[in-house]
């Protein structure tokens, strides 16, 4: 698919559709379609495999959030962060602090990698992804609420889709597969509640 060059249509830019087609903004080249999901999955699988081979550990994400929270609390109430167990576990060592942590560096990488990919594919765009029937404010409220609930769930389960589902799943960990089944089951069961947000 050749990028559209030159003068853009006078109408407002359409957001990328489910396949990633659509101009990012007037005059921009057309956003590239998304990659074959199986290929993307194989790519991610190979990255995870590299993590095992190089580091002897897998990927993760929610742990970085725990480190960030520990760092934040530590800057306001250092005693609390050192003595209360859920914070203390993420404080790292004295010299380097909570942010010199493997998962924090990994998540920074994820953020940069995602931005790079979007930029090169013409998908960098300010906006809000939501269904047609919900308002922007409503969507943002759901996003915050959903994030909060996921934060609690990830702490309880000691991981999220990256740490438990992908990493633990690929190692056939019992708890990780229980997590996957429970998460998918709950999400499907709860989906009727959020139809208005997405469809």
């Amino acid at each position: 698919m050749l990028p559209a060059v030159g003068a853009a249509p006078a109408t407002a830019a359409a957001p990328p559709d489910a396949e990633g087609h659509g101009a990012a903004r007037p005059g921009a080249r057309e956003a590239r379609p998304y990659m074959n999901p199986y290929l993307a999955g194989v790519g991610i699988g190979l990255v995870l495999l590299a993590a095992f081979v190089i580091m002897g550990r897998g990927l993760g994400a929610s742990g970085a959030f725990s480190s960030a929270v520990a760092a934040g609390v530590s800057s306001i109430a250092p005693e609390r962060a050192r003595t209360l167990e859920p914070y203390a576990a993420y404080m790292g060592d004295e010299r380097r602090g909570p942010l010199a942590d493997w998962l924090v560096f990994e998540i920074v990488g994820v953020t940069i990698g995602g931005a790079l990919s979007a930029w090169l594919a013409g998908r960098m765009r300010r906006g809000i992804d939501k269904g047609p029937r919900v308002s922007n404010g409503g969507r943002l409220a759901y996003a915050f609420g959903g994030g909060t609930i996921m934060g609690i769930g990830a702490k309880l389960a000691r991981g999220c889709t990256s740490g438990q589902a992908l990493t633990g799943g690929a190692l056939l960990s019992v708890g990780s597969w229980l997590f996957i089944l429970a998460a998918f089951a709950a999400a499907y069961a709860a989906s009727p509640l959020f139809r208005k947000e997405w469809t």
Partner: protein
Amino acid sequence: MSTNRVLAIVAGVLGALALFGGDTPAPGTPGAISALEVARALRADPDGIRILDVEDEGDYARFHLPRAVRAPADPAALLAGLEDAGAGRGDLVVVAGGADDDGRAAWLALRRAGYVHARYLPHATDAWVDAIVSPVLPADADAGARAAWAEQAELSRYFGGFPRVGSPADTATGDTADRLRRARRRGCAF
């Protein structure tokens, strides 16, 4: 042939072969353990942890961790000894390394043999002396360190050590042998 077809065939073949490929050693918990963790485990359940000291006879006689038994450095002999002792593959087994050796080699052998909870305590004597026999809390330590110290001091006393608060930026003085000698002169059972 489409990409998806190729992927599916490769996955299918590798998956089918796996059916006949058989078993493989399992992944596990991290290798290194701290002296503090060993102390906690010993106090919580002295029979629930096996400590294997792979130092030579002389070093073992001079000092070894509570309840540590001597084990041969040779992996095959070490594994045989563990089997004879009736150790289960799920037991907590800690390899206490000597001064020059962190016990990793023996630990690797244990893990390869399926002891999923095998751990190693590098430079065990030094680590134990630092953490339990004569731990020191620097006088300028902050509140967080003091809170953690309470448990460490208690564990130290439990095992007959003498925890103390030192002068600012103090670390335990003297080498390990010195500190052990001093501990023994005080009548502590080391």
